């Protein structure tokens, strides 16, 4: 959609800002990661400057409806990096099959050597949150904890 010559873009942005803004996503997503450390018995989130296997990370996604119209069926999907393992269940659905099917962790199973077993935190490949509707200006943060394998 930005294949027009540069001069045309500049003109468009100067003279017709509103149409351009309409092409931006109405929802802004901002990812963050922190390392979770217990300092004097209190769990704190610190910049991930030193991270080693066994450390707990918290991956957060901040969302905001930046537009004047409501957003429906807002679903945020986050594939887990292969180097981490989900550290705790949470208010999200999970997938243990690479993102094909989702549901509460307790409902997930795996078949190994012909036997079905309940899925564990270590089996989770994706987490997913669903928010029915984002009114204009609505914002929030979704996060999951993971341990570096």
């Amino acid at each position, binding site marked *: 959609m930005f294949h027009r010559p540069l001069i045309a873009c500049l003109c468009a942005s100067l003279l017709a800002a509103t149409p351009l803004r309409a092409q931006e*996503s*109405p*929802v*802004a*997503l*901002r*990812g*963050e*990661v922190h*390392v*979770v450390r*217990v300092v004097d018995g209190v*769990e704190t989130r610190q910049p*991930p400057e*030193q*991270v*080693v*296997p*066994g*450390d*707990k*990370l*918290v*991956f957060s996604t901040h*969302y905001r409806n930046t537009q004047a*119209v409501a*957003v*429906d*069926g*807002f*679903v*945020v*999907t*986050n594939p887990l*990096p292969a*180097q981490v*393992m989900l*550290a*705790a269940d*949470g*208010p999200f*659905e999970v997938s243990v099959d690479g993102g094909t*099917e*989702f*549901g509460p962790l307790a409902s997930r199973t795996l078949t190994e050597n012909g036997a079905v077993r309940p899925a564990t*935190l270590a089996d989770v490949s994706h987490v997913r*949150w*669903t*928010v*029915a509707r*984002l009114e204009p200006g*609505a*914002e*929030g943060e*979704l*996060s999951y*904890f993971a*341990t*570096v*394998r």
Partner: protein
Amino acid sequence: MTTPRLPLRSAALAGAALAAAALSAAPLTAGGVDAGTLISNTATATFTTGGHPQSVTSNTVTVRVDELLNVTTVSNDAGPVTINGSAVLAFTVTNTGNGPEAFTLLADPNVGGNAFAASVSGLALDTNGNGTYEPGVDLPLINGGATPVLAADASQVVFVLVSAPTGLANGATSQVRLRAEAVTGTGAPGTLFAGAGHGGGAAVVGTSGASALGNGGLVAQVAAVSLVKSATIADPFGGSRPVPGATVTFSIVASVGGGAAADALVIADAIPAGTTYRPGSLRLDNAPLTDASDGDAGAFIGNSVRVDAGSVPVSATRTVTFAVTID
């Protein structure tokens, strides 16, 4: 499949509950993701506005995994190694960190409670990986030298060559301690060496302190030789009184006890003052020996008798007899 739908406020509250639940998660230990690995996370959202499906992707956040310095040292010997002069102790040093690392090796024979202190003559690296020390094959290393760089989770078998002091009691025990320390550095867990990690990050001391020691046991297996000397007297008058002219026959019984054969056992005795050796009377286990220093085991030299009994096995005895005349 139905999807639970969370209003905004409860999503935030649930986040707090999640944080509390995460406290109980057990951390992983040894090995783990390789040092220098980049962990990247990206979220994607789908939604509709005015019935039109749309999607948006978050920025990608990236974390670099630092090098964790961890090591273990364990003895490979099933029990105390017998030592009779010298012995070889075997240990395995394992890089339980997540990056390539070399380890300084230091063997210490002075461990509290030792009945004796062995001396460390050197170390050797099991270069062919067969677990058995082979002089000339396995790479010699000075005490205090370092292993080659070991990959994460890789091991190195280390031999500690020790020798025992003389005069040990049979069965005396001693420990030799091998300590392996990460060359990058050691310290309290969490100690940081900025920029020293594999892959450009920091090196962080793990729960081992980046230092580990293992103890190997030694048990002295030495020969214990006891000598019992007795004498019988035959006087010229058919009696057994120690008068001039009487013959005294001495018998020395050497018994080998302890845990090992006595090698090169020499039994020697000086002729008592006031007596004269009776030529040709020297015997070993009742077999006559010549008085000359020659091919046989016995000799009479410098007014002493001397018998070279050779190697005498455990629990065996050797009996030397000789006769003198009272002057």
